[in-house]
């Protein structure tokens, strides 16, 4: 294979990953890592490093819009970032001592979990339980929901649970090069009582900082290879931008099924790679 064909193929895969990911509401990393390792023969640590870079690009791009429209709860996001950053730091440092084989297995488990959770119908927020910490730090929020045409106000509860899950999401992000929204969004929505739009926006807002933490570790360690990271970063970001534009005009269910199928196949292959 030539450097040129490698760059073009990786760009194409990353573009598709970003496109599909944004259409179903997850980042591209979950598809990019299996594709780079299984199809392109890139080492798993190098693939994770390239993926985490693309995660910064997509989440920062999306957050720019969410912050301006005030859908992202910045106060809650900043608080939970303490937990995700510590998690990302532990995950990225851990990745150095964990064997490639175990990384494949852990990644397969997260892929499986993601596939299953995407098949379940999305829940609606439970009633808010009083939370002294959320009151003291004034974490409650409101935003203008365009599809409803009115302001939506909500109260945040179970902040401590949110901190704990954010830590785990951070570890997953640092260890596997993914954003970790798949863990945070359900907790914010189902346990903390936030509307789903505020959940995904706040999660995206946090992911840039989480990913920057582990990216810094991978970068200083020399795992970020410009040759691999460049087409991945550009491809995923452009794909995500196309996805955001197509979002409203496409049938979500078909895309969801295709995406789950891609996840399931990758899951089995990563599993085999870890076991054999």
């Amino acid at each position, binding site marked *: 294979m030539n450097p040129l064909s490698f760059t073009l193929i990786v760009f194409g895969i990353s573009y598709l990953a970003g496109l599909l990911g944004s259409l179903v509401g997850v980042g591209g990393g979950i598809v990019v890592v299996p594709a780079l390792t299984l199809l392109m023969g890139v080492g798993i640590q190098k693939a994770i490093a390239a993926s985490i870079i693309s995660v910064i690009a997509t989440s920062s791009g999306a957050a720019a819009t969410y912050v301006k429209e005030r859908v992202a709860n910045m106060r809650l996001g900043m608080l939970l970032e303490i937990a995700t950053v510590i998690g990302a730091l532990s995950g990225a440092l851990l990745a150095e001592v964990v064997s490639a084989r175990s990384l494949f297995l852990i990644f397969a488990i997260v892929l499986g979990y993601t596939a299953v959770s995407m098949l379940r119908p999305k829940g609606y927020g439970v009633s808010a339980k009083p939370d002294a910490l959320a009151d*003291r730090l004034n974490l409650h929020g409101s935003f203008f929901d365009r599809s409803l045409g009115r302001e939506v106000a909500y109260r945040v509860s179970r902040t401590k649970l949110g901190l704990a899950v954010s830590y785990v999401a951070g570890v997953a992000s640092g260890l596997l090069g993914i954003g970790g929204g798949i863990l945070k969004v359900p907790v914010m929505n189902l346990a903390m009582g936030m509307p789903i739009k505020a959940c995904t926006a706040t999660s995206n807002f946090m992911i840039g900082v989480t990913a920057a933490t582990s990216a810094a570790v991978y970068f200083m*360690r020399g795992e970020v290879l*410009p040759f691999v990271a460049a087409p991945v970063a550009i491809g995923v970001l452009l794909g995500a931008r196309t996805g955001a534009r197509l979002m409203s005009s496409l049938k979500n269910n078909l895309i969801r099924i295709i995406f789950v199928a891609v996840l399931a196949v990758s899951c089995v292959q990563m599993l085999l790679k870890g076991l054999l």
Partner: protein
Amino acid sequence: MNERNEEHGFKTEEAISTLLKVGVNTSLVLIAAGTLLSFLNKGGYEAGAPAVAKLTTSAGAFPRTVHWLAAGIVHGNGQALIILGLLLLIMTPVLRVALSILGFALERDRAFVVITTVVLLLLLISFWLGKGA
């Protein structure tokens, strides 16, 4: 951050949004330009499978000193340009956190100035810890 923002004429949300947009777009342009340059100047991107094998493993890694980066950019080295873009991309969220500290300070929200500063310190520590590893 809330309506109190407008009192001092500094809109934290808008500033953060602009910073993120400019940071991401600038770094992508640098990365794309660097890739193009690498192919044009054959800076390690020569045709053939051995080049790919070298570029996708650490064997092809090079010293990552500030000096190397500066010299590389001056000489139009494509990979140096990509590295600069990647660094800017990694720094974008860091700058965003720094900007939020300013926003919270203007609001005199002491608790959040502390929380945000802790996040910033942790981010800076991660660069240092990565280097040590």
